[in-house]
């Protein structure tokens, strides 16, 4: 295992020391709880947005704290959901009287820890806490008898859009309606060229042959649903887009698209894949109105990429375009 770290058990805290050092003006880092906050919290009358999850997906979530996006990010151990204490500390710090919204990726661990935190925060301090579950990964079969889809790339778009809505002063119920729309119209699919090395495990989570890719990869090095031969980028673009378009009709409305790098794939390849994906989408009558290319939700050093599409009506586009000022996403200010 070759990593720029001091000790495996200190990775998250040591990295947060760097976050604090890099963004002294805009962020405040609660090192004890491993919570990243905006420098000024709470914001009176604004719904507080709290997200978090296992670390190793940077810039998500800590890089999305700031004006127009999150109020706080709770950083768990690498690929392990944070513990309720962290969310409770965050809830307390960001509550400006309008309640707090938890943005949670749909993984058992995340769901249970956020649930416990919400119960305890509400009981302890009477804050109204609601939560949004992001569950967009079409690689996972969705049925009554399973836990449902994983939350992956759509989380980035959810945080940006809800962040803008909260900044505008919309209330908790309004945010829940926006979130429902994002969940209804958003889908993702990813594939990997290599595994990643979870620091505590010390070796790659899975092995791929030199000509193999893993289709339907998660963001924790979990194996996907299927192996395939690595072909051309044009073929990869089909492999990314096809399962998404098979799951939901993306024609007839503007679409926000994210071509996301999983960490180890250089930007030149990400743009190359986006070029091919955009051809595939155009061929299927999908009209892309906004595009984001880059490392936005990663799996440590995993090579590969994911595609997220979101049907966006006028309001969602308006919220997407609104100013945002975070280390990981910034425009308009």
């Amino acid at each position, binding site marked *: 295992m070759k990593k720029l770290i001091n000790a495996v058990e200190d990775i998250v805290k040591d990295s947060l020391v760097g976050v604090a050092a890099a963004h002294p003006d805009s962020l405040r880092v609660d090192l004890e709880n491993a919570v990243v906050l905006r420098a000024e919290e709470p914001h009176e009358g604004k719904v507080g947005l709290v997200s978090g999850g296992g670390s190793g997906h940077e810039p998500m979530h800590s890089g999305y704290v700031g004006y127009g996006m999150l109020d706080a990010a709770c950083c768990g*151990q690498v690929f392990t959901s944070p513990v309720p204490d962290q969310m409770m500390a965050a809830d307390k710090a960001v509550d400006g009287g309008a309640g707090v919204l938890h943005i949670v990726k749909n993984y058992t661990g995340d769901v249970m820890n956020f*649930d*416990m935190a919400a119960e305890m925060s509400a009981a302890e301090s009477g804050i109204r806490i609601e939560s949004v579950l992001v569950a967009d990964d079409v690689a996972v079969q969705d049925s009554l008898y399973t836990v449902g889809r994983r939350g992956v790339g759509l989380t980035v778009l959810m945080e940006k859009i809800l962040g803008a809505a909260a900044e505008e002063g919309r209330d908790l119920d309004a945010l829940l309606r926006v979130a429902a729309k994002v969940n209804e119209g958003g889908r993702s699919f990813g594939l990997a060229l290599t595994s990643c090395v979870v620091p505590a*495990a010390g070796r790659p*989570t899975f092995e791929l042959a030199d000509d193999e890719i893993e289709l339907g990869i998660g963001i924790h090095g979990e194996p996907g649903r299927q192996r395939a031969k690595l072909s051309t980028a044009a073929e990869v673009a089909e492999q990314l887009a096809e399962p998404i378009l098979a799951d939901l009709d993306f024609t007839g409305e503007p679409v926000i698209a994210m071509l996301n790098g999983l960490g180890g794939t250089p930007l030149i390849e990400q743009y190359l894949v986006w070029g091919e994906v955009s051809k595939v989408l155009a061929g299927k009558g999908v009209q892309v109105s906004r595009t984001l290319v880059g490392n936005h939700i990663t799996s440590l050093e995993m090579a590969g990429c994911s595609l997220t599409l979101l049907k966006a009506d006028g309001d969602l586009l308006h919220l997407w375009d609104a100013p945002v000022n975070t280390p990981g996403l910034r425009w308009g200010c």
Partner: protein
Amino acid sequence: MSDLSAQSVSTWLKDFAEVINEQANYLTDLDRQIGDADHGSNMSRGMSAVAALDPASFTDASGMLKKAGMTLVSTVGGASGPLYGTFFLRLGTTFTSDGELSAADLARGMKAGLDGIIARGKASPGDKTLVDTLTPAVAAAQQAADEGRSLAEALQAASKAADQGRDSTVDMIAKRGRASYLGERSKGHQDPGATSMALLIDSAARCLA
């Protein structure tokens, strides 16, 4: 040592912590195959914190068990943190008075723990989780109690059933937790949480009898 006290609980928890540390790589490796390669390090982080608790600072077993549960919730994260945490919290609320521990007490405590886990995680038997270890273990303990057997015998029976429950997860297709994303591909692998839960019951059989 069939006496329930902060001290006897501490002996059990320290033993389990030791076993977990020894087996951490194995548990992580099981999780590497159908999960995200952290079950061993999760449990080891949590149980090290639990093992550091001083039994002298608790007035009874109940207090110690509740604190262990809260400690797991606060240090583990992931799926196992709330689940193991809930298990010990429920044990703590069941075992309200120190002293003699009977087979019936044991069965009642374990059942409360299992119910808590199911309430929190919504898994059913057959979903390929630690519930598949705990469910037959509870049943075995209950049967031993019903048959009027000793605590030691109940623990032995529970441990044997737990091991069988753990083994039964190999052939299952996961429906809860991270392994469920693998669908059919989760078959043929032993569930990490079911494995650590069997270690917990085995440890109880060693320490609480």
